């Protein structure tokens, strides 16, 4: 997540000081990605250096300096809204790496790894769903008795963040189901009998199980 872009998007609404930016950022994203004030001020310094923001004046009585977007900052912010988020670079995902390693490292119970993770992810999904229920219930109450008429819809922002997390967790559970099915099929697949080293090398792909000392007709015995 680009903190830089997030702060500029907030400053497009009007000048704010560091602690204010931090509070707004966290409120609108439901505190899912907490920022510390140091991070906010470091980012503001860089943005100021690059000419995207500027101080509105001197520090106030409490020593707080407000910042606003420059023209270049406003243009940068506008570009952000119209540019898709880069999906070409694949972030390192610990679970994917863990399972990829689990099928290649001897002695790891891959199904147990997948099952343990699925249980944990489902609990997480359950917690997210409860949070979502609370937000939806609050929205229903607001429909009948508006508590903050005209206020920016921060609940909507939080709901969208929550739903993103719910979809991600659900996708992870589906993928784990798929992993189990894949492992099951792999276990049932007849294995080609190894012949000579030369033929094996020419045969191309080696699997995680090729190095097992005593190949069996099915791979279920491994688990």
């Amino acid at each position, binding site marked *: 997540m680009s903190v830089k872009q997030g702060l500029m998007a907030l400053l497009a609404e009007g000048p704010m000081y560091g602690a204010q930016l931090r509070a707004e950022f966290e409120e609108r994203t439901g505190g899912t990605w907490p920022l510390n004030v140091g991070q906010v001020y470091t980012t503001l310094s860089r943005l100021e250096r690059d000419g995207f923001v500027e101080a509105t004046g001197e520090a106030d009585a409490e020593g707080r300096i407000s910042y606003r977007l420059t023209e270049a900052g406003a243009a940068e912010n506008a570009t952000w809204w119209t540019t898709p988020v880069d999906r070409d670079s694949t972030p390192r995902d610990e679970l994917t790496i863990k399972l990829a390693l689990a099928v290649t490292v001897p002695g790891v119970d891959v199904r147990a790894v997948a*099952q343990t993770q*699925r*249980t944990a*992810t*489902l*609990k997480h*999904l*359950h917690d*997210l*769903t409860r949070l979502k*229920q609370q937000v*939806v219930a609050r929205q229903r109450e607001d429909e009948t008795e508006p508590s903050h008429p005209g206020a920016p819809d921060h609940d909507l922002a939080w709901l969208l963040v929550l739903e993103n997390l*719910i*979809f991600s*967790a*659900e996708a992870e*559970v*589906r993928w784990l*189901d798929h992993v*189990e*099915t894949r492992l099951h099929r792999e276990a049932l697949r007849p294995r080609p009998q190894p012949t000579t080293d030369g033929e094996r090398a020419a045969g191309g792909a080696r699997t995680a199980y090729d190095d097992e000392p005593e190949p069996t007709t099915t791979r279920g015995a491994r688990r």
Partner: protein
Amino acid sequence: MRYPSLILDDVTRVHGSGETAVRALAGVSLDVMPGELVAVMGPSGSGKSTLLNLAGGLDKATSGRVVIEGEDLTKMTPKGIAQLRRQRVGFVFQDYNLIPSLTAAENVSLPLELDGERPRKARLLARQTLDLMDLRELADRFPDQMSGGQQQRVAIARALVGTRRLVLADEPTGALDTHTGEEVLRVLRERCDDGVAGLLVTHEARHAAWADRVVFLRDGVIVDSTGPAGSAEDLLDAAPA
């Protein structure tokens, strides 16, 4: 002291015999408390539907006990089981199963009338149930005048009309879009928060997440469970009196 609405105690179900015998469930134990919604997940053929059928007295266990609100089904006659099912258990299916020629209120009152309740009283109870579930405006509509989500909510009302406090739902959101499916689950969740016990079979993790607990079945065996969130005592305390 409160007791589980549903107890499956070391339940096994074998179809066929001899070499062709298929073990659909093997030694499954599961309790569902009043106020608790339990989701059952698992791949196709893992025994989910068998478990639900046994829990509702639609099928008979080969061994083990099935107890609904203190009544041990394994010691009851088929007639007794049928009566218990009519009075204590509500079913919700994927395809709603509302009778097209009856209004929502008539569909909801039907189980009571079939159980011998006077039609007038049955319809009064049906309307009360629809009111309770914020479905009053659907009472006089026929199924073809309702959306899928509305029909399924009426089906839940039908499952819970009268004295029934145990609802067994088999993929109740299977035919609905995401938003409508969630509305149906919200209704089910609210009923359980009011003290109904629910068993929900689903293959959607997002829907299972509405439950207090998720159990996984594989090859007829419970291989894992996510809960309960609290101890049995916590659950008892949380359940409405």
